[in-house]
Every structure is written in structure tokens, then in C-alpha cells.
């Protein structure tokens, strides 16, 4: 009797568990049971619910803010923030400090904002800029309205002193730009002059790098910098490690709350930019919850807890096509975003085997790029058949600078296993010992292809590269170490094949990208964070790279870039695996709407409402009613 009872209990338990499991797998039932509730009403309901939930939490949870006044992000900040210091080289405060070609200007501000859609600079702290004739002096006038958060005006002295500090304390930015910018001088309170460094002939070393500084490097307050210098006794290392918790900045947001769970910024209602933009940015708070991993971030994004997602989402279109969520991307169809960069596999050309261009080209020819784009990137990239290879990204501005007809003979679109085999056979690189792997001087051609662990789409791409290797008799093993090990391998050339992003859209590109692919200068660096990680050296290419920054004639530039692309495709020091957006930009319109869209006429780039000119989007947002 008892045994039977036991059996029944077991059966019931198993049954119950299965049912729970299955009900968990069910899709969320649609709420419009009555059939007439509109989507807008639904979303208000959810907003109302989340708001009340949020309010309830308020008492218990520090740093909570009302849902309908807060814009939530994911995919930018992955750990507790360590400082507010733009001079630091290991700041992880991604939302506040991201000094790149499209700098993030919600806390600190740059002189100008770069817009990758039209390639122009838009004024922020700066108002106008102009070159003198020889491109030796760049004059910038400061916006007279600009003020620091302590209400003192932003002056030309601040701009000059910021550069001086970068140079004096040899920050990462300072050591780079001091090669191209000699001095930054304040002519008067509102005019600042960038003097380019000159070479022996009296020509500027590189005017492009001077302009590049402008939308990239934050302006800091002179008085505050002096305070920091004083409290650290002018010690460079200490200054670079100062947490700067009491920072003074000029941007629309300031620090509100942060811990290991999230970072919250609050709008500065006295922000000077009201004069520039005509109003304040819409969200009162900006919050980035620190998620454990992509999956956690995705789940939050889908449920409407995150408004702007900077994460790669597999088959993002399914979210609206199948799940009917109020989620959209900048473009409604593939590739869903503006691809401005191209993750690239760099060959270490010092490795025996990879020093032969036939081997490099054969690997590049055999890889199935369509498969990478369709599966690893789930079609969020145009194919190399639509946008043939060159050193350009797929934006129309850059494509106009290359003559694709001249590159036809050098193109490869991938999955050409026979062609790759023939190339290797012709070069006498064959498999003599019959183990399926070709040899050079009796040594098997086996290489490691690496990228950081957990970068899903990159991991999958390298697996596809490895699969191509095995088809043409070259052993390629994938290796996914943690990010820090990878950085070490990449910057000190301890890799065979490594994957990294060349510079995306910037005022100095495509020149900067061409440098990252082929610059001899970079090849010689001991610790190389800048580009040409594989150490490729080509004098012809290097000469062209030196000529480009001084050239202003578009036709000549096109000629130079075409020749560079030809060398690049012929020699294959590295090869791009896909095109990719600089930032992923998907938005959930449960709470906020008015995000930039293709063809909305606003010319705001999809840079997560924070980067470069993309910050203009913050002023257009409205609550969903």
C-alpha cells in the first residue's frame, strides 16, 4: 500500500514539475482579451505598473528614480565605476568617460560633436573652427554661453590647460596628440589656437590628428585641475589615479548615485546648453544597471526595464516580428543599423608561415563570410558582395573615396576553397607528410585564432575561420582567453591571428583606419594599442599614409586610398570578417519614444543617444502617453 502511495506521489510530483516547466516555456499571453485595447493603452498600463513598483522600491532601494523620468541603458557599464577622471587611462566609468571619435558627452563635454551620418562637426563648447592657409593653426571660438557646473564660464584657458595637463602628465591621449599638436594657446577668453607641430620643412606633421582631437578630448576646468594637481603634489601617477569624486564638468548630467548594482546620473537643471539646444534633455535621470552578462541585459531590455540597448541581440527582428514587442532599431530591415566599422582578423606577420602572403591570402579567401554575416552576426551587416572590400567602411562618404573598379582583380568574397588551395599549391606550400596539414620547411602550418571569451559573435566568427582552415589544409585552432589576457597578447604581439576593431567613423577616417591596417609607425611600438597589431611593414603604403593628411584635393585622395586598398587586398596583412555598427542601438519604446530613425529628417546618428552628435536625441525624447 505504502509503496503504491509512493509511486503515486512520485508520479504527481514529476507531472507537476513538467507542467511548471511547460507553462514557463509558454509565450506571454496577449493582454488584449477584450480585443479593443490599443497598444498605446497597454504600454501606459505597464508604465503605470512599473512606476508603482518603482515607487514601492524607493523606500528600500537607494538611488531609485521614477521610471517615467529615467532613461535606462545596458551594454556599456560592466562593473562598479572606479573614478571620474578623464586623465586616467584605466577609468571604467563608461557612461561618463568615453573619449573616442564620437565622445560620450553626458557628463564631460568636448568642443565639437562628430556626426557619422554626414561626417561633419557640430558645435558644443566650441562655436566655430577654421584653419589658416598652411593648416598650421586651427582657431576655435568658444561658445560664450558655456558654463561649468559651478556656473563659472568655460574659457579658452580651460581648453589650453586641459591639453597642457594631458601633455605634462603623459596621459594616453597626451602622449599621442603631443606628436601632432605643439601648443594650445588662449588668444583671449573665447578664442583658442591649436598650433600644429611642424616638421623640418615647416609643414604640419599631421593636420588630421589636430582636428581629430577636437571632438574627442573632454575640456576640463583649469581651476579644478589645479586643485587636483595641488592635492597630489603635481605627481603624474597620483594625478592620473585621482578618483575626482568632486569633479567639475560642463555636461547636462551629474553624478547622482552609484554602487555595484547601478550608476545613476541626474540632470543639471542649470545646464548652460539650454541656450544651445533651446531646452534641457528630456530624461531627468539616466541609469545604467550593471548586469551580470548579456543574457541578463537582454531579458531586462525585452521586459521594458531598459530603454536603450547597446548589446548584440541575435535575430533582433524577431523581437518585433514574432514577439510583437515595442522594440525597434534605427533601420527596420537588415542590417538594422549603420555599420561603421569592420571587425578584422590581424595576422602576426612575424610568425613563420604567416609571413608568406600566399598563406594569408589563402586563409582570407577560404573563409565563408556569408555564413559569418548570416549566422554569427544574424544578418546585421551588409555582405562583402554588396560592399566590396577596401580599407573603407560601408558608409557612402567613405565609399566615395575609393575606386572599386581598380580593385576588382584583388577582391575576394570568401568560401573560395578551390582558389585558396590552388594558390597554396602554386606557391609550393603542400602537405608532404600526408597528415592533412600543409607544411613550410617541414613545419606544419597551425595557428591560433584568438579573441576575448564571451564575445559571442566574434567567437562564432573565428570558429567559422577555423572551419575554413581545415578545408584548405591549414590548422587553425580557436582560443578564447579572458579579456585581459587577450589584450596582453594583442598589444605585445603574442598571437598568431587576433581579432579586433579598427577605428570606426571619425573625422580623421578613413586615414586613421588605413593607419591601423598598415602603419609602419605602429608596427614598431613595444606595447601597441593603436593598430597594425601584426607588425606589417610596407614602405609604399607608409609613404602614402604620410602624404594623405596633408592632401586636400579629393581626387588625389581617392587615388591614394585606392592604391592603399590595392596593397591591402593584395598583401592581406589582415582581413575583415564582417561590417558592424560602431554601437548597437536598439530601443524599447515602453516608456520613452522619439528615438532617431532613418528618414526622420533629424540627421541624428544611432549612437545610443549619448555619443557624438547622437546626444541630440536626448532632447527629442518624450514619454509614451
Amino acid at each position, binding site marked *: 500500500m505504502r509503496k503504491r502511495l509512493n509511486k503515486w506521489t512520485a508520479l504527481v510530483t514529476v507531472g507537476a514539475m513538467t507542467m511548471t516547466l511547460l507553462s514557463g*516555456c509558454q*509565450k506571454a499571453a*496577449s493582454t*488584449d482579451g477584450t*480585443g*479593443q485595447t*490599443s*497598444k*498605446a493603452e497597454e*504600454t501606459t498600463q505597464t508604465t503605470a505598473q512599473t512606476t508603482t513598483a518603482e515607487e514601492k522600491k524607493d523606500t528600500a532601494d537607494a538611488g531609485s528614480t521614477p521610471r517615467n523620468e529615467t532613461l535606462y541603458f545596458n551594454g556599456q557599464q560592466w562593473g562598479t565605476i572606479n573614478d571620474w577622471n578623464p586623465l586616467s587611462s584605466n577609468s571604467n566609468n563608461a557612461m561618463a568617460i568615453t573619449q573616442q571619435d564620437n565622445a560620450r558627452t553626458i557628463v564631460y563635454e568636448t568642443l565639437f560633436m562628430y556626426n557619422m551620418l554626414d561626417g561633419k562637426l557640430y558645435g558644443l563648447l566650441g562655436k566655430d573652427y577654421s584653419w589658416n592657409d598652411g593648416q598650421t593653426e586651427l582657431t576655435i571660438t568658444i561658445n560664450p554661453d558655456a558654463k561649468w557646473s559651478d556656473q563659472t564660464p568655460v574659457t579658452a584657458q580651460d581648453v589650453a590647460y586641459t591639453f597642457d595637463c594631458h601633455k605634462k602628465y603623459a596621459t594616453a591621449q597626451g602622449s599621442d596628440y603631443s606628436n601632432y599638436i605643439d601648443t594650445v594657446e588662449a588668444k583671449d577668453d573665447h578664442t583658442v589656437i591649436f598650433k600644429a607641430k611642424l616638421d623640418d620643412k615647416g609643414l604640419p606633421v599631421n593636420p588630421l590628428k589636430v582636428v581629430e582631437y577636437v571632438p574627442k578630448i573632454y575640456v576640463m576646468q583649469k581651476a579644478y585641475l589645479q586643485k587636483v594637481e595641488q592635492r597630489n603634489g603635481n605627481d603624474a601617477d597620483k594625478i592620473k589615479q585621482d578618483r575626482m569624486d568632486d569633479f567639475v564638468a560642463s555636461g547636462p548630467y551629474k553624478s547622482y548615485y552609484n554602487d555595484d548594482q547601478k550608476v545613476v546620473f541626474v540632470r543639471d537643471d542649470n545646464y548652460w546648453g539650454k541656450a544651445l539646444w533651446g531646452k534641457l534633455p528630456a530624461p531627468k535621470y539616466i541609469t545604467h544597471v550593471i548586469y551580470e552578462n*548579456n*543574457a541578463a541585459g*537582454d*531579458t531586462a531590455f*525585452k521586459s521594458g526595464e531598459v530603454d536603450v540597448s547597446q548589446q548584440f*541581440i*541575435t*535575430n533582433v527582428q*524577431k523581437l*518585433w*516580428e*514574432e514577439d*510583437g*514587442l*515595442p*522594440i*525597434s532599431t534605427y533601420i*527596420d530591415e537588415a542590417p538594422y543599423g549603420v555599420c561603421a566599422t569592420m571587425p578584422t582578423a590581424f595576422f602576426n606577420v612575424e610568425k613563420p608561415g604567416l609571413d608568406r602572403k600566399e598563406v594569408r591570402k589563402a586563409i582570407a579567401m577560404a573563409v*565563408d563570410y*556569408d*555564413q559569418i554575416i*548570416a*549566422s*554569427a552576426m*544574424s*544578418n546585421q551587416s551588409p555582405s562583402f558582395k554588396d560592399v566590396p572590400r577596401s580599407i573603407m567602411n560601408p558608409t557612402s562618404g567613405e565609399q566615395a573615396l575609393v575606386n572599386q573598379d581598380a580593385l576588382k582583380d584583388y577582391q575576394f568574397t570568401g568560401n573560395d576553397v578551390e582558389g585558396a588551395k590552388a594558390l597554396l599549391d602554386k606557391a609550393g606550400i603542400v602537405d608532404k607528410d600526408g597528415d592533412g596539414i600543409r607544411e613550410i620547411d617541414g613545419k606544419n602550418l*597551425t595557428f591560433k585564432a584568438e579573441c576575448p*571569451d*564571451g564575445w*559571442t559573435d566574434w*567567437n*562564432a566568427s573565428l*570558429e*567559422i575561420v*577555423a*572551419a575554413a582552415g*581545415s578545408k584548405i589544409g591549414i*590548422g587553425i*585552432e*580557436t*582560443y*578564447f582567453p579572458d579579456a585581459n589576457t587577450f589584450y596582453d597578447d594583442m598589444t605585445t604581439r603574442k598571437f598568431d591571428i587576433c581579432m579586433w576593431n579598427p577605428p570606426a567613423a571619425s573625422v580623421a577616417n578613413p586615414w586613421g583606419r588605413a593607419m591601423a591596417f598598415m602603419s609602419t609607425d605602429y608596427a614598431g611600438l613595444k606595447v601597441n594599442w593603436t593598430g597594425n597589431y601584426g607588425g606589417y611593414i610596407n614602405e609604399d603604403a607608409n609613404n602614402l599614409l604620410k602624404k594623405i593628411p596633408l592632401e586636400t584635393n579629393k581626387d588625389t585622395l581617392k587615388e591614394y586610398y585606392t592604391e592603399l586598398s590595392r596593397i591591402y587586398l593584395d598583401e592581406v596583412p589582415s582581413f575583415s570578417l564582417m561590417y558592424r555598427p560602431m554601437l548597437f542601438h536598439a530601443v524599447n*519604446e515602453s516608456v520613452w*519614444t522619439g*528615438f532617431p*530613425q532613418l528618414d526622420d529628417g533629424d540627421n541624428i546618428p544611432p549612437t545610443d543617444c549619448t555619443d557624438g552628435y547622437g546626444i541630440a536625441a536626448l532632447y527629442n525624447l518624450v514619454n*509614451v*502617453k
Partner: protein
Amino acid sequence: MKNQIRQIFHSPKFTVGFIIFAALLVLTVFYPLIVTNDPLEMVGQGNFFKPGTYISVSEAVNTNPYTLNLNASSSRLEQNLSMEERMAMADWLNQFAGISSKEMDVTDAGGLVSLWKDHYDSASEQKGLIAARKKYFSRLDKKITGLLEDTDVLLAEKNQETGEVSVKKTIPSTSYVNVKDVGSRRVFILGTDNFGRDVLTELVAAIKTSLKIGFIAGLIATTIGLSLGLIAGYLGGIIDDFILFITNLFTVIPSFILLILISYSIGKNARGVMMVAIIIGLTSWTWTTRSVRSQVISLRNRDHVNLSKLSGHSLFRIILTDILPYIASYVVMALILQISSGILAEAQLSMIGLGPATTTVSTLGLMMNWAMSYSAHLNGDWWAYFPVIISIALISFSLNLMNTGLDQIFNPQLRE
């Protein structure tokens, strides 16, 4: 012996376990004979294609059509516009065209669509509507336009020389093809994975690999465990102390951590199926040693063993003929458990990316790993991971069932 086997198969638990296990084994043997495709071939260009039959469109177009009078455009509308979509349309018309809900009848798709066609304009401002919704309506409009098309689809041909396009064939909307007439097709019973590989084919190959790893790991672990246990238990003394010391040492170190460390240090290329199996085997022998040893200790002073000793039999012979047969049933059960845990260990290892290389072999853990990284579990692509979980569950369930069944027969305490 015969009697014993009969006895074993009288145990319902053992029989069920055995049948499941044998079925899996048969599957791995016979499936590759029928479906000869390479399990690692990336067939589908894209991730997670749904399960189903895929037929070639270009062949379908060129196949002789059958005319079926099924598809008048109004019934097409009725069939293809879901209630949800009709509600949304009614909503839009109500909100932006000022048509009261009384004038509309959502059960009449034709009427609704004609109202829609009259009033909808994707360029209109649609104030208060979020972008995602605007895009939804413009997609819906596109769908309706497609459904309304009554004209034939034209198939054009390009002249190689002149580049001119001429009509090759017209396809009326009443044309149907019989799926059997289309030669080029591929059935994905369980869809495809993130690399576009056929999940079922891959799964069968993975089960085979996992079983192989389990067997090898189990055999190695059992062999090491058994020999050390026998020696330690029978000889006793300082040798016993020494072996026990080593065993305890390995018991204290969590074997999974050891497994991770070794796997990590030998690198991915060296980590083939064989190597992974050996590593697992080498890290999981300890408890077999301990239990065999204690069994042998209780056996070694039995009369028949002493008798053998007095008769001058060699150590090897005593262990082989007087001790081993008494613990054989136990060893078999231990082997079964070791196999099961070996398979699980491989799955765990591959899950964290320390298994064999993705491009060389498919294993259950690797399949789980990629399905997880491509968030199949979040996107509802169940076919990429659920069958894998079921397979792992079935394998270890069947093995454990067999083990329990054997236990009931051989363990006198459990005998009914």
C-alpha cells in the same frame, strides 16, 4: 551465468533502463547510415531555422503545377489576417481616420481591408504612436498589399547576350505544387543551430561522442580504481596506507576543478575526444578505489581466500579467482555510474568552453554552450537546446536505472 542474466532482465528497472540505452545506441549506429551528411556542415545560412521541410524555391517554380481552386483573394484575407492584426487595424482606423468602431466589423476581413486601403497612409503623422508601432502598421500594409495581389506572378528570364528580360512563365495564384515532386529538399526534424547546422544529425553525432567519452572515461576510472582498491585492500599495511593517502588527497581536491585546470592547460587543439575522456577518467577514480578497498578487506580473511593462500597460489591468482568474482557485480555497477558521470562531466566542461574544439567534433556540451551563447533559451528556439537536455537526461537516467536494477538483484539487503 544464464540464470543471472535472466534474473537481471526480470528486474523492470533494469529492463527499462536497458531499452532506453539500447535505443540511443541503435540510433547512433543506424542514423548515420541513413543520413550521411556531415554533422558539422554549416548548411543553413543564418541562425536557428525552424524545424520543418525545406524545398527548393527555384525547383518548385519549375515543377509542373496543379491547379486547385482554393485561393480567391477574399478567403486569402480571411485566412491570413489574424484577429490580432484586424484589431490593430480597427484601432488605427479609429484613432487616425476617425472611423467609429460601430462602422467596422473585424470578422469581415474584406470590408476592413477596403476601409484600410482607403485611409491608411504610412507617411501620415500618426501622432502619439511610437515608432515601433508605426513600423508595425507599415509592415502590415505591405502584407495586405501582397495578399490583395490577384495578378499572376511573372517569372522572367535574362537574355545572356542582350541583357533583355523576357517573360518565361506566369504563375497564377491557383497554382500548387506537390512537395513530393520537388527533388531538392532537406528535412530538418529539429531545425538548425546558430551555425546553421542540422541539429538532429549533430545531436546523434554528439550522443555518439558523449557515449564514447563516457565509456573511455568510465573504463579508465574503473580500471584505476579497481586495481588500486584491490591492491590496497588485499595487501594492507604500508602499501594500503600509501594508496589510501593518495586517494584521500585526490578526494579532497574537487575533481571538477582539477578537470578544469588540466583541460585549460593542455590547450584546445590537443583536447580531442580521446584526451577529454582520459582527463575525465584520470580525475574520477577515487571513490571506486575506496569502496573496492573496503569490500576487499571484508573478503580477504574469508576461509576460501586463506585456503588459497595455504595452497601457495600467487597473489595475482588469488585476487583474480578468489576476490574479483565476489565484487564483480559491484564493479559493473560502479562502471555504469562512472560512464554516466563521465558523460555529465564532458557536458559541463564543454558548457564552459573547455571541451573539444567546435569545428572538429560535436558533443552535447558544445551544443548547449553555443545555444546558450546565442540565447536560444531567451528567443524560444527550443530545438537548439531542449533535445540536448533530454538526451543527456535520458542517457544518465537509463544508466542509473540499470544500476538500481542491478543493485536490487545483487545487494542482499535490498532483495525482496
